């Protein structure tokens, strides 16, 4: 097997705040192969965005402590100098953000913002950069790119702006694209278009994509493999089928249980996971999900390692001490996968 494109090992990111040290990312490891779409799923505060920003070198700061390794090719992005990181950003690894309404500078033309990026990395003429910016806009499906080049961001619709952001991210043909909740701020039909576009770019260019989302529907649409994150840790990792049809971690059950489905009778109340995510300053000892988990038992005070507990699926890993047979029994709630029944 060839070496993965990007490998993250035992990444820890913590921030010093006035209330104490926030352990935003607590030992995250994963690998991303060329041409793969990896989804990172989790709720707000699970550490997925901080993980992404750390890959970009954008979580650095006087109050941040970053440990572990992020290898992209032969470079370690954790120890790379600020200047090396600056060159890698945009050129080898690029990012698209959640809200396309605010992600572009309102006072510059959309095209010029792409040209600015190209010229920050390459010593090329304005004309050449402009031509390439127009090409980038065309490649993400923006009609009339020559004319749209001269528009300001507020003259674009939300979906078009997200396309332009993707064009900006891909202008230098990076190997990895991190899309942080790229569809959350968009309406549903536009969401589907943007996901199609990411999928198309992945297939046509072999672009590796890390898709960060809290929406399992988005995961089901496009991803090859998923990581489920909770309170700074990966609690489950597997293929789309693993996660949706044979979920091993109670938190994943809870996420799946709180989905509404058009092909099922509408529940009277939407099941939700009881409780709230733990404080990342003083997280619970052992399994972080323990306080909210109805299946907690004595062993849970020790941190379960992220490993495969299924002989037939060595790549399907989770962080739960329960035996797989017990899990398969307990995860069925009201005839479907869930953590708790919908409240009456």
């Amino acid at each position, binding site marked *: 097997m060839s070496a993965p494109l990007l490998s993250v090992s035992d990444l820890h990111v913590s921030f010093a705040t006035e209330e104490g040290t926030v352990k935003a990312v607590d030992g995250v490891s994963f690998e991303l192969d060329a041409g793969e779409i990896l989804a990172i799923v989790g709720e707000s505060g699970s550490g997925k965005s901080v993980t992404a920003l750390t890959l*970009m070198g*954008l979580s650095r700061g006087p109050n941040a402590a970053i440990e572990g390794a992020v290898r992209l090719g032969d470079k370690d992005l954790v120890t790379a100098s600020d200047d090396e990181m*600056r*060159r*890698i*950003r*945009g*050129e080898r690894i*690029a*990012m698209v*953000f959640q*809200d396309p309404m*605010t*992600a*572009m*500078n*309102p*006072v510059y033309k959309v095209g010029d*913002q792409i040209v*600015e*990026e190209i010229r*920050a*990395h390459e010593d090329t003429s304005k004309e050449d950069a402009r031509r390439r910016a127009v090409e980038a806009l065309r490649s993400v499906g923006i009609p009339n790119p020559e004319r749209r080049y001269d528009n*300001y961001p*507020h003259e674009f619709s939300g979906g078009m702006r997200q396309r332009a*952001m993707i064009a*900006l*991210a891909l202008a230098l043909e990076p190997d990895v694209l991190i899309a942080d909740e790229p569809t959350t701020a968009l309406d549903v039909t536009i969401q589907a278009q943007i996901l199609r576009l990411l999928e198309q770019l992945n297939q046509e260019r072999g672009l590796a994509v890390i898709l960060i989302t809290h929406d399992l529907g988005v995961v089901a649409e496009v991803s090859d493999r998923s990581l489920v994150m909770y309170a700074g840790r990966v609690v489950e990792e597997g293929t789309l089928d693993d996660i949706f049809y044979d979920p091993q971690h109670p938190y994943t059950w809870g996420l799946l249980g709180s989905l509404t489905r058009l092909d099922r009778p509408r529940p009277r109340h939407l099941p939700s996971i009881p409780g709230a995510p733990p404080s990342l300053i003083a997280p619970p000892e052992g399994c972080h999900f323990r306080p909210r988990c109805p299946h907690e038992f004595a062993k849970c005070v020790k941190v379960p390692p992220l490993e495969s507990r299924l002989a037939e699926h060595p790549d399907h890993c989770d962080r739960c001490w329960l035996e797989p047979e017990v899990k398969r029994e307990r995860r069925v709630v009201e005839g479907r996968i869930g953590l708790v029944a919908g409240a009456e």
Partner: protein
Amino acid sequence: MARFAVRRIANMIFVLFAISVLTFLIFYKIPGGDPVLRISGRTAEPAVREQVREDFGFNDPVYVQYARMMQKTLNGSLESYSNRVNVREELIRGIPATASLVIGAAIIWLFFGILFGVLSAVYAGRFPDRVITIVALIGISLPIFWVGALLLYYLTYKVSLFPAGGYVPLTEDPASWLSHLILPWFCLSILFIGFYSRLLRSNMLDVMNEDYVRTARAKGLSERRVLLGHVMRNALIPIVTLFGLDFGAAIGGGAILTESVFGLQGVGQYVAESIGSLDLPPILGTTLYAAFLIVLLSAIVDIVYARLDPRVRLTA
């Protein structure tokens, strides 16, 4: 743009009209403002006063008096009640001193206001920021007349570094012009440097948290480019508005304290003297002059603003 200009000019005329009516009424009604006393002198016989009252039309209805005064204002024949000096000539005489003071001070306060604001924002919470914050607050808190008096005492009386007030036209003697203006420039700028640096600091810190600044970093731009091209470019927009209005007010005679302390004989000092003697014609003349400049500059600010921020459309 043409629509904007027409509406803005109509607007301007209305504002100036409203201000002229208000100013006229206030100083017409104010106790002790009787113009007859200023024209005839305090010791004049009652018969003389009556004669003056009749001759100058002070027995006419208010609106007739207002119309007469506005007519004189517009054709330039408005004269002071107390010394019969022509208001327009007096204003024009004061403009070079005021313009020298305000333009010079504006360059200084913009330069240092922006410099300190940027340093303060870049080093937010650290030593340089703390020092600048303290200095800015001191600058904002110091009264101009006190700083001015202190400077005059130590730098002209104790050590004769600078001339003790007054104004020398630039065309007459540039070196002397400069030496007469250094202290007033300093004095007038201190306050504004404090305000501008505080405002720019908070604007920049706000902008630094904007998503598009994160995007700029994600593009791999250098910190310098992020700061100048993205943070500063957006943080300076509100400063433009503030500067336009402050500059308009000061050049319209608002730098009363500085001009008076240093005896610059500019518009501001003329304003102060006119108000001190409740002399309606120069008060009205200078008020309209100042209002005109402020309205004009706010229109210019709007045009500049629309240039700086493409989301803004010019609709008056």
